[in-house]
């Protein structure tokens, strides 16, 4: 039965192959293949997930597994395969389900696209990558699927860059932006992946294995934690710390943490389902999943000496706040969400950095649901705006005044009042937004975020707690701002006036996701929470704690503390309230009400701290200069002339060799051999007289001599 695990990633892959090779021309069939394969994967995935989650004690220690020998490596055979333990089960609950919903949503969103089939082929390939990644039982296989996702990300972000401008509604600038964004995403994540690859190679060198079960075995980890290595700048470093940080860099790239976060907002150039799927719900959470998976490696070094944990906590916390501040000053509906994603992923890393294994996993799942919902909702809005713009254009009486701005269906400044036009989208979006803002008690986001804050408070990481609390406030604020700017007030443009609700293939997934975004968190209400706690008894926590125990991570249940809970609620409600005060109480123009009062700070935030420009001016400029320099070294100054000289020397050498060695020595030797043979032949042929009597005489003489020898 466990062999069926193979099918979970294999089915979408088969769909991909079939679409690319066979059904490319039939859009309907291609989409059906992808959705059908994913649906089967989903059913299988839930079967395995629930089997594991309902018998947690057994499967925490003995994961469902399917293995096969891969290749011989030195003394051992490298075994690969798939496994389902409780962590994988939790992911398996979320990933195929979200994939399926988003694929269905894509049916409506991508309607009429000339490369519809191709899009679904990529989606299927992506599903293969993500499912394979969470199921892989060793790091190498996981890395392969990880990179497969990277490729899909590149292909899907740049999906519209392969299009000729004017083919449909995509203009030239957008094509160019998509092309740049896809390259940026690919190259930026590659930076992290390279470091991670180094970590993986070192890990293999140190432990002789890459299987999770072997690498993360307690005695292996203790050995890694005790052995020291000499580093150039940092001095003595424990192997565990070094390896953990190297692996974490992979997560920094994939999960868009500072300083490698720059690709994610640009990735919003891709079609919105892609943003929802890859850049919010699943792929970026792969980095978090990787760290949760390898958490024992981070955790094994005692607290206080643990540079890796500190590093993770710092990066996570910093990114959480940093991205949240940028989110405040963005106008593109998807970019706001993109920065919120970065920020929320920062939350998860911060949680991991302070040892909140369960809370991180919980937030990962909850975030996936509500962020997918938000992105799909924003896609629905963009779809409607686009459509409205199109309709408005047909009935246009002259150019519309947009405050000197160019129309962009993503721009929230051109929206407003969409609640009446598209109620389903609006209500589901609001549900997701409240969850993101951690609206107390009812939303999933509250329970997961509160858990992180409670852990931080409980374990005494006050700087983490307060930074995250501020970020929570900002999150609530920009979420509220987004909701009010988009759905409330009066329509600010003709496009918004002509918008209408999206088709059912788009709204149904939204409704389903909204249910999860609200109710999903209830499985994780901590047992100690007054009133509600005893009803649920922290089911999710207890399951994940069993998994943690199996990995020899000791989790102390956090007792309920009203102080952080109240602070958390205050921040969420306060953020929403401030947003309502600024954006909800009076009609908005094309200028943000905060733009003038904050002035300089606003510019900083609007330009994203100029991180992109800084990179452009430093690293990329250096890389370009270095490339030119190397080109000069290569072609002009050193290598080419050297190669030339070597070539000339080779020619001279060959010429001299021919003249002095070949012609003078070798040739003469050969001729000498022939001459000797000739002389000998001439000499010996005289014996061959052809006269029988000569031979007879020779015989007679020989016999005579022999006889003489015998006789005397």
């Amino acid at each position, binding site marked *: 039965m466990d062999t069926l695990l193979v099918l979970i990633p294999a089915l979408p892959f088969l769909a991909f192959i079939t679409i690319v090779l066979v059904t490319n021309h039939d859009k309907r069939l291609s989409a059906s293949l992808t959705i059908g394969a994913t649906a089967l994967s989903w059913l299988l995935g839930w079967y395995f997930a629930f089997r594991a989650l309902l018998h947690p004690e057994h499967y925490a220690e003995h994961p469902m597994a399917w293995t096969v020998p891969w290749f011989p490596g030195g003394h051992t055979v490298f075994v690969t395969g798939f496994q389902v333990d409780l962590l994988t089960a939790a992911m398996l609950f979320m990933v195929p389900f979200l994939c399926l919903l988003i694929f269905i949503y894509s049916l409506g969103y991508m309607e009429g696209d000339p490369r519809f089939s191709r899009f679904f082929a990529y989606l299927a390939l992506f599903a293969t990558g993500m499912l394979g990644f969470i199921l892989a039982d060793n790091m190498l296989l996981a890395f392969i699927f990880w990179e497969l996702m990277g490729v899909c990300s590149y292909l899907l972000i740049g999906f519209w860059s392969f299009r000729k401008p004017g083919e449909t509604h995509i203009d030239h600038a957008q094509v160019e932006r998509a092309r740049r964004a896809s390259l940026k995403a690919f190259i930026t994540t590659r930076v992290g992946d390279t470091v991670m690859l180094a970590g993986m190679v070192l890990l293999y060198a140190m432990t002789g294995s890459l299987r999770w079960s072997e690498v993360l075995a307690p005695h292996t980890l203790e050995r890694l934690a005790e052995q020291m290595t000499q580093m150039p700048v940092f001095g003595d470093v424990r192997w565990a710390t070094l390896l953990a940080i190297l692996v974490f860099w992979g997560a920094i790239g994939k999960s868009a943490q500072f300083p490698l976060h720059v690709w994610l907002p640009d990735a919003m150039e891709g079609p919105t389902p892609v943003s929802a799927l890859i850049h919010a719900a699943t792929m970026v959470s792969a980095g978090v999943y990787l760290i949760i998976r390898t958490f024992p490696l981070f955790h094994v070094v005692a607290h206080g000496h643990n540079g890796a944990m500190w590093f993770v906590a710092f990066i996570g916390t910093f990114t959480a706040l940093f991205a949240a501040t940028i989110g405040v000053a963005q106008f593109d509906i998807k970019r706001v969400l993109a920065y919120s994603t970065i920020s929320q992923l920062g939350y998860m890393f911060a949680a991991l950095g302070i040892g909140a294994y369960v809370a991180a996993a919980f937030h990962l799942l909850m975030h996936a649901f509500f962020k997918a919902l938000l992105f799909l909702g924003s896609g629905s809005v963009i779809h409607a705006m686009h459509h409205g713009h199109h309709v408005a254009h047909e009935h246009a009486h002259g150019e519309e005044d947009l405050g000197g701005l160019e129309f962009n269906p993503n721009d929230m400044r051109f929206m407003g009042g969409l609640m009446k036009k598209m109620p389903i989208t609006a209500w589901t979006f609001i549900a997701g937004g409240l969850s993101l803002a951690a609206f107390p008690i009812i939303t999933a986001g509250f329970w997961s975020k509160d858990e992180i804050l409670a852990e931080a408070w409980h374990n005494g990481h006050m700087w983490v707690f307060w930074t995250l609390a501020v970020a929570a406030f900002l999150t609530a604020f920009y979420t509220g701002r987004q909701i009010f700017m988009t759905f409330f007030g009066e329509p600010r443009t003709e496009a918004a006036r002509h918008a209408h609700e999206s088709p059912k293939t788009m709204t149904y997934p939204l409704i389903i996701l909204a249910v999860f975004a609200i109710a999903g968190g209830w499985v994780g209400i901590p047992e100690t929470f007054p009133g509600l706690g005893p009803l649920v008894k922290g089911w999710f926590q207890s399951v994940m704690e069993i998994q943690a125990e199996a990995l020899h991570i000791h989790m102390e249940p956090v007792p309920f503390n009203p102080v952080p809970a109240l602070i958390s609620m205050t921040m969420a409600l306060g953020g929403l309230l401030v947003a309502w005060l600024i954006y909800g109480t009076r009609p908005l123009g094309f200028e943000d009400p905060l733009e003038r009062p904050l002035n300089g700070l606003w510019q900083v935030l609007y330009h994203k701290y100029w991180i992109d420009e800084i990179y452009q001016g430093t690293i990329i400029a250096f890389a370009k200069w270095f490339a030119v320099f190397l080109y000069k070294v290569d072609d002009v100054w050193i290598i080419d002339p050297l190669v030339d000289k070597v070539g000339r020397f080779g020619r001279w050498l060959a010429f001299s060799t021919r003249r002095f060695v070949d012609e003078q020595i070798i040739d003469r030797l050969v001729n000498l051999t022939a001459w000797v043979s000739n002389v000998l032949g001439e000499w010996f042929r005289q014996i061959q007289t*052809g006269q029988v009597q000569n031979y*007879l005489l020779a015989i007679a003489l020989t016999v005579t001599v022999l006889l003489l020898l015998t006789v005397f």
Partner: protein
Amino acid sequence: MVPLSWYLAVAAVLFVLGLFGVLSRRNAVAILMGVELMLNAVNINLLAFWRYTQPENVAGLVFAVIVLTVAAAEAAVGLALFIALYRLRESVNVDEIQLLKG
């Protein structure tokens, strides 16, 4: 009675005379005559040994008879060859026949 070694001595002399003829003569027919002399020497030996060692065993006689037969056959074929050769080359001089000269 004549000693055996006398016969053997006569046969030896006859044999080397034949050998000398074979080695020194030009004419193929003369060479053939030398060969016949050598064969006669052999026959004398055969009969001498028969007579002086085992006269009751006729093997020596049988061998002599067969040598005689072979000599006849050899002479017939040899002479036929000479005639063919002569017809071809207008010569039976052995030293002029050296097709295999290296």
